[in-house]
């Protein structure tokens, strides 16, 4: 994918105008709470995806990127709110820029606009999970298995995979339904042919016997076989094919219809009872009915979903994924109602099948009535058929079924009152017809038999096609499920192994045997972790919160690595490293450095010591550690750096803003003192709350540094290294002089250290204070690599006082 080179941010979130250099390297951004560091993550995320995760999801209903993405003073000017990133695309060996405005979040300007470059940005835009915030971590660990499954699914982009599976499942159901309908139509066609031929069993032999009796009567050659091309009326002259009316056949059809109508009260009785019972249940529980109607509505919404705009109400969501989750969550609450709906529609489907059979018989009777010019009966049959068609259509939907209640209570078939009379009249009229001559009877028999055979053949062909389509649908659905489950099982197996390994890397001192087990089930993802060899338990059962947070980061990293492989080149970790407890931070840095050497991390933290530890561990360098020391709504984040802090203070003093200069200096001194106390292992008076003031840390640091220079001089003397001895002594003397110079301003320092009264000083008063401390801090810093001096090793007896580049490297071990 990409590596960030630089970012230019204007009027976005809490940022007014900010330039940051990343140079493709891992970057740490430190800043106290409210200093705007998360705004940088928001900006990068927005530039790459068009979204800001913090402005979406639970609890952000009335918040949107469009309304709340711009700086609060630029809300009415979303065009002014934009981010421009310069990136390197290693796979293409290209550098590109992407500029995205809040006013047009879906239309980034990409330069060069090459297809391969655009494709890379499209790929990233589809993966907002490159951002992990601290609030996200617990989503992986301390949630119910069903919820964890959803969160992991979101990272794995399983939505699209699930969508395909659902579509295949729906297709399979539709094909099965079509097969059932085709089977029913084939049976009706077969019954019609069998009835016409008046044969006991539907077989070729009996059929040909019945046909050959008529053929012999007409002097036609008997048929010896029945294949796909056989015509039962073969050899019959066209002039003899004039009428299909066959008296005995017509009477048989009318008798069949009469029998069917007589049996109607008992037909589908159980199914009618099921439907009426379900309707009564829904009417007795309005909440259930509401839930059911919601299921139907939500399913429609899910089916129509195509983009971030709600298809039901046009409301614009942050993403289609968010909207889909929202609809699914609502739909899940109505699952009980959905079960009832399923039973109701299944019973309604059975009634519909019986209605279709009756309609087929009515069609045949209609043809007879028409051929007899019995207009009244034909009209009634047509009207009843139309009514049944409408009724059958109603049975296909929940709302439709609910509307059939009164009909079902009476008679689902809704037999017209005059049917019996008209049917009896039609039958009597046919019975009273003189018997057809043997020749005419034989001719009409063969013509009708051929017509019905053709209908049966067509219905059989449709059934065969439906059967083949159904078999293909079943095969496709099952093959997709197998492929999906196989890949996911492999993925979870890999992830649980890497997750365990990462966690052991961080916690190797006390959890060397840590293992974890991810168990996917339908809609769930169980996670169990080993607790000190005592067995597998849910993560929240025994592990501390700090350990659970660490698990969240490790699971995220394992998922991303498995998902993206070598394409995992960028991750934005917003205050996530706070999840790692202080005892394991160096191991965490080691994990990122050694296991993700190709990944550029942009890491924010509100703990300055943590930021400096990342630098000491080599995860970031002095140049890639950005500090925001303050923020105002007018200026946005104020960036601090070892080189720029003094320029910023000078600039503030030049403008007469002593309060700003004082604030910056104090923050810087607090940071340096605290960091140096850690680097030099200075002795501080212990405070249970860990709330060390500048007055606690700075004197202890100065004392410790003098002590170390003294130790270095003594060690050099013991080794007979006169040059090193003189150098160490000189440093000690310079430190004392700088400290002495700062003592000139003792009155100011004391007030400043203990009462923070710098802000009340005049510019002239404050300039010497700045100069004295600038000189003092320079004694603790390497002029070559800009790193702060530190003692090594971090534990045990000190062996050296050095900097990152080793320009400063004073031996502390005496001979």
């Amino acid at each position, binding site marked *: 994918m990409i590596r960030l080179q630089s970012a230019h941010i204007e009027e976005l979130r809490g940022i007014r105008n900010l330039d940051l250099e990343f140079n493709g390297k891992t970057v740490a951004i430190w800043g106290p709470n409210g200093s705007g560091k998360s705004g940088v993550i928001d900006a990068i995320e927005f530039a790459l995806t068009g979204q800001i995760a913090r402005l979406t999801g639970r609890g952000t209903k009335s918040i949107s990127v469009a309304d709340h993405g711009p700086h609060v003073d630029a809300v009415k000017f979303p065009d002014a709110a934009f981010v421009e990133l310069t990136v390197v695309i290693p796979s293409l060996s290209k550098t590109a820029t992407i500029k995205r405005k809040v006013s047009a979040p879906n239309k980034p300007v990409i330069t060069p606009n090459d297809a391969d470059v655009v494709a890379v940005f499209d790929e990233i835009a*589809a*993966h907002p999970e490159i951002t992990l915030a601290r609030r996200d971590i617990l989503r992986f660990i301390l949630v119910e298995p069903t919820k964890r499954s959803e969160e992991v699914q979101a990272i*794995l*982009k*399983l939505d*699209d*995979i699930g*969508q*395909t599976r*659902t*579509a*295949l499942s*729906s*297709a399979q159901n*539709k*094909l099965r339904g*079509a097969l059932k309908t085709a089977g029913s139509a084939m049976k009706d066609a077969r019954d019609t042919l069998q009835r016409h031929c008046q044969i006991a069993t539907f077989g070729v032999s009996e059929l040909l016997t019945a046909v050959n009796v008529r053929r012999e009567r007409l002097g036609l050659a008997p048929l010896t076989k029945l294949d796909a091309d056989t015509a039962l009326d073969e050899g019959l002259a066209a002039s003899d094919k004039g009428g299909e009316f066959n008296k005995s056949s017509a009477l048989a059809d009318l008798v069949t219809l009469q029998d069917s109508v007589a049996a109607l009260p008992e037909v589908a009785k159980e199914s009618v009872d099921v439907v009426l019972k379900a309707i009564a249940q829904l009417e007795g529980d309005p909440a259930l009915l509401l839930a059911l109607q919601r299921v139907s509505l939500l399913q429609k919404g899910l*089916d129509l*979903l*195509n983009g971030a705009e709600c298809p039901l109400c046009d409301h614009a969501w942050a993403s289609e994924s968010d909207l889909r989750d929202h609809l699914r969550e609502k739909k899940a609450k109505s699952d009980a109602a959905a079960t009832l709906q399923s039973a109701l529609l299944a019973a309604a489907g059975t009634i519909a099948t019986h209605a279709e059979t009756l309609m087929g018989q009515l069609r045949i009777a209609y043809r007879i009535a028409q051929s007899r010019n019995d207009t009244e009966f034909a009209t009634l049959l047509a009207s009843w058929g139309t009514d049944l068609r409408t009724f059958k259509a109603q049975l296909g939907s929940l709302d439709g079924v609910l509307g059939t209640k009164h009909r079902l209570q009476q008679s689902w078939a809704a037999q017209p009152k005059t049917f019996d009379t008209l049917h009896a009249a039609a039958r009597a009229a046919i019975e009273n017809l003189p018997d057809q001559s043997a020749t005419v009877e034989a001719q009409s028999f063969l013509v009708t038999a051929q017509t019905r055979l053709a209908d049966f053949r067509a219905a059989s062909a449709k059934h065969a*096609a*439906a059967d*083949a*389509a159904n*078999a*293909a*649908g*079943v*095969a*496709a659905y099952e*093959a*997709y499920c*197998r*492929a*999906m489950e*196989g*890949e996911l099982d492999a*993925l979870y197996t890999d992830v649980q192994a890497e997750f365990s390994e990462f966690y052991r890397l961080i916690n190797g001192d006390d959890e060397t045997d840590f293992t974890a087990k991810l168990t996917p089930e339908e809609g769930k993802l169980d996670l169990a972790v080993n607790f000190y060899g005592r067995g597998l338990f849910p993560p929240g059962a025994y592990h501390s919160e700090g350990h659970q947070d660490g698990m969240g980061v490790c699971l995220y990293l394992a998922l991303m690595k498995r*998902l*993206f*492989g070598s*394409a995992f080149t960028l991750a934005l970790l917003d205050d996530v490293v706070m999840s790692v407890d202080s005892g394991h931070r160096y191991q965490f840095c080691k994990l990122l450095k050694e296991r993700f050497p190709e990944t550029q991390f942009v890491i924010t933290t509100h703990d300055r010591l943590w930021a400096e530890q990342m630098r000491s561990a080599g995860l970031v360098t002095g140049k890639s550690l950005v500090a925001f020391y303050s923020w105002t709504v007018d200026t946005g984040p104020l960036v601090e750096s070892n080189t720029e802090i003094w320029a910023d203070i000078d600039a503030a003093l030049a403008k007469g803003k002593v309060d700003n200069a004082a604030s910056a200096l104090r923050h810087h001194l607090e940071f340096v003192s605290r960091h140096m106390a850690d680097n030099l292992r200075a002795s501080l008076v212990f405070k249970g709350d860990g709330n060390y003031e500048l007055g606690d840390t700075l004197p202890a640091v100065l004392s410790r540094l003098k002590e170390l220079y003294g130790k270095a001089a003594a060690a050099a003397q013991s080794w007979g290294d006169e040059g090193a001895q003189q150098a160490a002594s000189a440093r000690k003397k310079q430190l004392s002089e700088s400290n002495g110079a700062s003592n000139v301003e003792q009155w100011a320092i004391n007030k400043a250290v203990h009462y923070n009264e710098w802000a009340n000083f005049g510019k002239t008063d404050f300039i010497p204070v700045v100069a004295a401390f600038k000189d003092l801090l320079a004694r603790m810093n390497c002029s070559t690599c800009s790193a702060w001096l530190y003692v090594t090793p971090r534990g045990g007896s000190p062996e050296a006082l050095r900097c990152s580049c080793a320009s400063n490297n004073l031996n502390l071990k005496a001979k």
Partner: protein
Amino acid sequence: MSTLQQQITDKFLASLAAEKSVTPEMLDALKQLLVSGKKVKADDIVAVFTTPSGGAVT
């Protein structure tokens, strides 16, 4: 298409190629549908499996 989705699609199509009930035409149409980048709809799949060999007569 995500890496995982691509892997599943590849495996799915390879598995389906061995099914007697799925013709080469169906397989090809299904592949086009899955790699189009559009959301797959049930009706599209039904059309793939119900279209006569050689295409529908129009």
